[in-house]
């Protein structure tokens, strides 16, 4: 452990010269630019930069897993699998929809599930994990500005969450525990775990309050 906190989106840094030209209203953080360059130019230098940034994060993410059947020896396997997928699937990355970091998180999540399923010998599932996240064609992208706002909101709220909400969110996202498993482990009623998560998400303005959900539709 290096004990470093990294800065996620560093817009003050010059994007790599090799990166593709994106117009100014498009996503401009350096990781997204690098990822686009991997997709458009099979740019190995950009890929190396992405690797240097994300591999240590991915390894920590892998080590945080507390899934049944997971062990630390799998961590570097996951890093490799994710980075190979990143190379292979870079062309499907849409910078208008998500930051590179969010996109790579989803690749990592999917690889982690795939590795677990392979280990547990799930038989004859005619689906790959990414099929579960297949996007409908008519998907309307949310404006970049709204996305950026919501990313900022998530980040600033996460930093200020009460400890008990933070604890549950980390269990769910990093350790990979379902709400039910988290409730067992923490010795809390399921309803309490759910409401802690819900409170945190409401602060981040991720959840539409249930009473308004149907009206929004």
């Amino acid at each position, binding site marked *: 452990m290096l004990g470093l*906190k990294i800065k996620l989106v560093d817009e003050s840094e010059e994007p790599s010269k090799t990166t593709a030209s994106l117009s100014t209203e498009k996503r401009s953080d350096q990781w997204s630019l690098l990822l686009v360059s991997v997709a458009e130019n099979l740019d190995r230098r950009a890929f190396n930069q992405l690797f240097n940034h994300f591999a240590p*994060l991915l390894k920590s993410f892998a080590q945080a897993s507390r899934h049944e059947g997971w062990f630390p020896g799998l961590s*570097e396997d996951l890093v490799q699998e994710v980075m190979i997928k990143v190379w292979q699937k870079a062309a499907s990355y849409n910078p208008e929809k*998500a930051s590179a970091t*969010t996109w*790579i998180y989803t690749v990592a999540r999917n690889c982690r599930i795939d590795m677990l399923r392979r280990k547990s010998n799930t038989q004859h599932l005619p689906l790959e994990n990414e099929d579960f996240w297949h996007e409908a064609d008519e998907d309307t992208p949310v404006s970049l500005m709204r996305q950026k706002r919501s990313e900022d909101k998530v980040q600033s709220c996460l930093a200020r969450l009460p400890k008990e909400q933070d604890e549950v969110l980390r269990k769910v996202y990093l350790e990979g525990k379902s709400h039910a498993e988290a409730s067992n482990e923490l010795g809390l009623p399921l309803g309490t775990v759910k409401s802690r998560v*819900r409170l945190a998400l409401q602060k981040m303005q991720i959840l539409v309050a249930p009473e308004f959900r149907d009206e929004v539709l």
Partner: protein
Amino acid sequence: MSTVNHHPESSMLVDFSAGNLAIAPSICVSAHLHFCNQCRNELLRLDQVGSKLMSEVELTEVGDHLFDSVITQIDQLPDSSAPAVSSTSDMADGRYPLLVNKLINGSEAAPTWRRMSASVDVAQVTTGQKEYEVALHKICAGGKTPRHNHNGQEFTVVLKGSFSDEHEVYKEGDFLFCEPGDIHQPMGAQNGECICLSALAAPIKLSNPFGFLMNPWLRINPM
């Protein structure tokens, strides 16, 4: 009915976003997302939570060999992955979620409609897990299903048409969750057949040498 808001509850979406939801409920959530822009947007934002949490972990050093190993593997990748050849069952439908069509076409044994009652047909699909039975149900126009109890949790997504029960009308894309003990009597809409995808949690099973012959699922589950 425990949830009549036609969407998966937020904790399910969170578990889905974190990758912690079992296969069968994930299939239903994914099918719902195909139809529901609101939940798709919610999922995008939930993924941001996962990504922020991931990006704030303490870094762990990786060995120098790792990048070289990845590059070596990339160089050995086949030029393009061969497109999966799949049979196309007439049960598949271009308007269904891709994942549902893949399930139908890739099922170990081609799914076939089996008469369950006068107005309901059922076709099971293979999903490689035993916790839930995943199946398509077809209710004929105006068809009345028997009033029934649920023995286990059940997730349902309407793929085509609509049906109603004593509580609500469920239209294309709607998500419905029934808990054990919920009782309802679905009725197909008058204007056409209704097709749903459902995942029903396995009731306690007797282990026996005859496998599915004694599978308690065979008793039941018109919806």
